[in-house]
């Protein structure tokens, strides 16, 4: 981490104090733990041969998807990527549906139509990613364009890795967002590798430096500090909502597993992994909850325990879900009508202070919390 970003992180941390309640902090921790526990459970299912294809996770990157998505209001919209399970959980997707999706079961979010993290619940305000990167940044632009044209104070948020920034579509997307000052927040996860390709073979200039050339701010934050990510995303969404345009937030992190379960990471120096293990976002936040925010160690352990039990229940539920009927393969190619996306859950306490009209949120409420 550079000195400059360390300074920015301290500033963000101070600011976050003003915006997060004790309960919010418990939620941030809970969602990170839920992501980790869900993915660990999924790895076991993969090793048991219950997941067809390969398996991909976001281990070590939990603070990013959780911290960033935590700022969103119900009517904001997301395109969530494959290292970002935490954002799905925050918005209201439950681990059983994630696990069922990985196993190709009928109760998975796509009902078996797509696997991996290539899903999104339309009733929770999200549009499913495709494998081509960073395609969803351009789709997020389109949603933001609709908000802008209609004068709605809503925000689109999307995620992509640093690998995506090498693709020409990334330039098209950033340029378009800058021209129209779209209410969109770009979360760039620099996890050091695009599959096996290290940063130095991905770009000559760090991608966050490009933001100002597109006419909007770029911030560099510690991606393993959930409150730093939260605060940067909070500022960015406020800017977007106020009509001040997009923000690119580069979150410095490390992909602690291979690109997929088939990847043994032989190209990663062992000392690099060890160094980043010391910065684990969940362990770090657990310590801070105790040292800075008045949580007792037993409260922290209680959250871990509750989430573990909840994810076990979710796994059992997912395993009970049947495989889809083969005829489903031929259904749903064309739509017979358009329907609005539903709204995502918005667990940040700020949103409960407002009477925000929702439609999908009420449906999802009550089954997204671990406790």
């Amino acid at each position, binding site marked *: 981490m550079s000195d400059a970003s360390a300074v920015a992180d301290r500033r963000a941390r101070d600011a976050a104090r003003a915006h997060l309640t004790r309960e919010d902090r418990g939620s941030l921790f809970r969602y990170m733990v839920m992501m980790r526990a869900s993915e660990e459970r999924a790895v076991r299912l993969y090793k048991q041969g219950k997941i067809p294809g390969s398996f991909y996770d976001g281990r070590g990157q939990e603070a990013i998807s959780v911290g960033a998505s935590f700022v969103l209001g119900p009517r904001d*919209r997301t395109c969530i990527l494959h290292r970002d399970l935490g954002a799905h959980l925050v918005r209201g997707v439950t681990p059983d549906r994630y696990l069922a999706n990985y196993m190709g079961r009928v109760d998975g979010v*796509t009902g078996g*139509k*797509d696997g991996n993290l*290539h*899903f*999104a619940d*339309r009733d929770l305000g999200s*549009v*499913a990613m*495709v*494998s*081509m990167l960073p*395609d*969803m*940044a*351009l*789709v*997020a*632009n*389109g*949603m*933001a*364009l*609709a*908000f802008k*044209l209609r004068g709605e104070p809503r925000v*689109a948020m999307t995620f992509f890795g640093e690998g995506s920034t090498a693709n*020409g*579509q990334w330039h*098209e*997307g950033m*340029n*378009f967002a800058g*021209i129209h000052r779209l209410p969109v927040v770009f979360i760039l996860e620099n996890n050091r590798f695009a599959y096996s390709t290290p940063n130095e073979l991905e770009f000559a200039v760090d991608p966050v430096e490009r933001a100002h050339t597109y006419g909007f701010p770029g911030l560099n934050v510690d991606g393993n500090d959930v409150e730093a990510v939260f605060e940067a995303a909070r500022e960015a969404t406020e800017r977007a909502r106020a009509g001040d345009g997009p923000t690119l937030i580069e979150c410095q992190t490390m992909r602690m597993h291979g690109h997929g379960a088939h990847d043994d990471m032989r190209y990663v120096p062992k000392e690099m992994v060890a160094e980043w293990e010391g910065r684990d976002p969940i362990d770090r936040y657990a310590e801070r909850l105790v040292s800075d925010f008045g949580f007792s160690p037993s409260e922290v352990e209680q959250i871990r325990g509750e989430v573990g039990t909840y994810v076990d229940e979710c796994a059992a539920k997912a395993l009970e879900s049947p495989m889809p009927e083969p005829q489903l393969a031929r259904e*749903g*190619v*064309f*739509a*017979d*009508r*358009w*329907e*609005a*996306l539903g709204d995502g859950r918005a667990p940040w306490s700020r949103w409960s202070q407002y009477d925000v009209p929702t439609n999908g949120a009420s449906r999802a409420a009550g089954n997204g919390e671990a406790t």
Partner: protein
Amino acid sequence: VTVTAAASSTTGEMTYLAAISDALRFEMARDPSVFCLGEDIGAFGGAFKVTDGFVEEFGADRCLDTPLAENAIIGAAVGAAIEGLKPVCEMQFADFISCGFDQLVNVAAKLHYRQGVAVPMVVRLPSGGGFSGGPFHSQNPEAWFLQAPGLKVVAPATAADAKGLLISAIRDPNPVCYLEHKGLYRHVKGEVPAGDYTVPLGEARVAREGGELTVVAYGSSVHLALHAAEELGEDIEVLDLRSLCPLDREGILASVRKTSKALVAHEATRACGVGAEVAALITEEAFEDLDAPVRRLTAPDVPIPFSPPLEQATLPQLEDMKEACRELLAY
């Protein structure tokens, strides 16, 4: 299959190009969620002037000039469509969809299948050759889209269908590729119903009734077939497909069962084109009704060359059409 265009209270003759503008204008006035985006479509009115005057009439926000970035155009349309707008993208030339192809075939086409999210958008594709546009301004890329399940594909031949199919495409909850043939823009004129006028997607039209041979065509080839039939003075039926996906399978089969002979004609290249699909359909479903092999009249499998004699040598000509009809009639 409809035999004639639906009657309307008031009609007016206009060009194919004006009919496209008329359809856009009508839908934009009727539905505030409809908007256009593309390169040079605003102040300039578009490379072919389809959106001439739209900025003055509807404002720059609803006739949005974009940078030269086709994936950004298609991607923005996908997102806007999901959020309830009805975008009509203009590719300046159909050829340029190659630069927006990823967003079209991987994002737009598959979202409903994967996630149940409808993407109501239109991609207007000025296509076709005949004016020395060369290999990058003359292509007929319809077959590309037909291999991407989730896209609808239409290709009007007449002014009335240009309007009716475009309004239907805008109202359809799926991504629709709308191929408008540049050679027809100002050369084809016809009566176009005023006001609200739709042509259902997936219904072919009998452009000329006949009993001895069916020419299955769309776009510019419809006019070639009609012209050939008149000059030959033979009992030839011309079936204008209008929609390539969904394809009017029953309409094709009904006509071929009546005439027992089929020629499939298009300006696009031959291999794995619409002609191949239609010929396969006929041989699979109406083999017993055939009195001759199904034949195709298409461009050869070459890029569209620039120099006039070379271009004329690739695009199907009237004499080619007449010869193909004569051969089948004599079979």
